[in-house]
């Protein structure tokens, strides 16, 4: 896993899945459609990504089309670095 994926993986586990076995959260686990990220959690994740990677995520990108999996999120962040 890339550094970005690792960082996001750790953030989601600690914030939204406390107690989950880290191995169960994979690159393709559905996050928004799987109810792991609700609307408030998505806003928090976006704020975290913007702060951590010094990027700007457009409001319309904060949805299941762009952020439903760790793979999607890594791709989105990478495209902005």
């Amino acid at each position: 896993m890339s550094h970005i994926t690792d960082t996001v993986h750790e953030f989601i586990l600690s914030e939204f899945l406390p107690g989950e076995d880290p191995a169960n959260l994979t690159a393709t686990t559905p996050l928004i459609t799987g109810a792991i990220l609700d609307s408030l959690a998505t806003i928090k994740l976006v704020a975290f990504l913007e702060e951590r990677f010094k990027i700007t995520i457009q409001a319309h990108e904060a949805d299941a089309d762009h952020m439903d999996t760790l793979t999607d999120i890594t791709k989105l962040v990478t495209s902005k670095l």
Partner: protein
Amino acid sequence: MATTALHDLLARAAQRHPDAMAVEDTVGKPEVATGITYRELDRLSDRLRDRLRVQGVNAGDRVGLYLRKSADGVASMFGILKAGAAYVPVDPTAPPPRNAYILDNCSVTSVVVERRFEQRLRAEMEALGRVPALIVVDEVGAGRGLGDALDREDRGTPVPTRPSSRPSPHDLAYILYTSGSTGKPKGVMLSHENATSFVDWCSETFGLTTSDRCSSHAPFHFDLSILDIYLTLKHGATLVLVAEEIGKEPQRLAQFIAGRRLSVWYSAPSILGLLAQYGNLARLDLSALRLVLFAGEVFPIKHLRLLQDQVPKPRYFNLYGPTETNVCTFFEVPGRVPDDRTEPYPIGGACSHLRTRVVDPEGRTLPAGEAGELCVAGPGVMQGYWNLPEQTARAFLPESQAERWYRTGDIVSEAPDGNYVFLGRRDRMVKRRGYRVELGEIESALYRHALVLEAAVIALPDAESGVRIKAFLTCRDGKRPTLIDLKAFCAQHLPAYMVPDLFAFADTLPKTSTDKIDYQRLKELD
């Protein structure tokens, strides 16, 4: 003039302001506004009225609405009312089996459904044994989708035009389903008089004009939509529908409110809290905004202060009331929240069309200042729960045969200034993002999971989001599902706002001496 039939509001406004914009929507393209005038809305709803009657819809029937928020949806409501039926809106984002249950439960004669939901709905209704007549709208937006669907139907069989229904005050106008403690949603039956008495009170209190531009943020299955739709259209103002996809994103939503020059805003406090924290409101021109109304849950005082600091001009109102009565008490926030205030504002005093009192568990009226259950009487109080006579009976004070006093389940006390202060619930219902959540309905869903042996759900206070929902589970043969699996499972069976935030596993759950789950000890365990 007091209103009689809810749909008369539209007919009258259309006579007075035929060319004014009635509803703006933004389906699919949130940045592009489309709309429908009063004349068009009235005409479109007349056409649906006539079509529904040909389909066999009679006065007293129910008709479902399974559409994204749109002018087409608003036109459908009026068409259904004009046909003499009650509309039953379902949440298009909720799991299809739950929606099918609702439509089957109140045995709808017909459903106005958007093409994208049609196939699943048919399959689910077939599984339940009866598929109602459908009017299928390809794609909603500005009423054009509904218009096209009616054109298509008319090419097959033209319909005669007949006048709109003349309902009596107690005839049902709509049924709104809310979370039910026994695991299934329950239908709150509201009549024309319930709605019109409330809307007339709103007119008296908020004084709308034709130049107002009012938000419709709440979905149509949520009772906040009644104020949005009917108050706005009664006054010939413009209803601006907030699309689902931007309604939860604070920055886009803030730009939408500024860009559309909204003058009246109404929503649950949670979205206002997010706007205050993440919306960059101070940088926007919100000068058109004159009224900010909120209801559905307690507004954390620090978020309200943060909002007022950025948007100081509007008057702010805390509206309170369950779906069964709609708003029954209200409180105007007196100016800016003082820096040292930490407790939330009161829910206020009774609306002029209703009466309230506070009772002890035996139903005796308590002196001012003592904590008890708030009860409500008057023309705004629901007709009952659909097909649930026992739950309906329990919802009212027993001695009140002549005068029906609805028991809200909310514990309040009356402060010396006459305002009620909300203290808590007498049962296991909580509010989350303004929605009612029966913890029992979440437990019911969890019990359907193959590995779950026992489930107990509690709500924990949370400074940021109001409450967090935590599920305690015991599992068959010690085989635990993963948290990820549990969340996905819940999302298939429950609306998003009911999915627990936290899960915990135990070997056994604490029990009372009568072998019931001991929720008090669960909370202490936490």
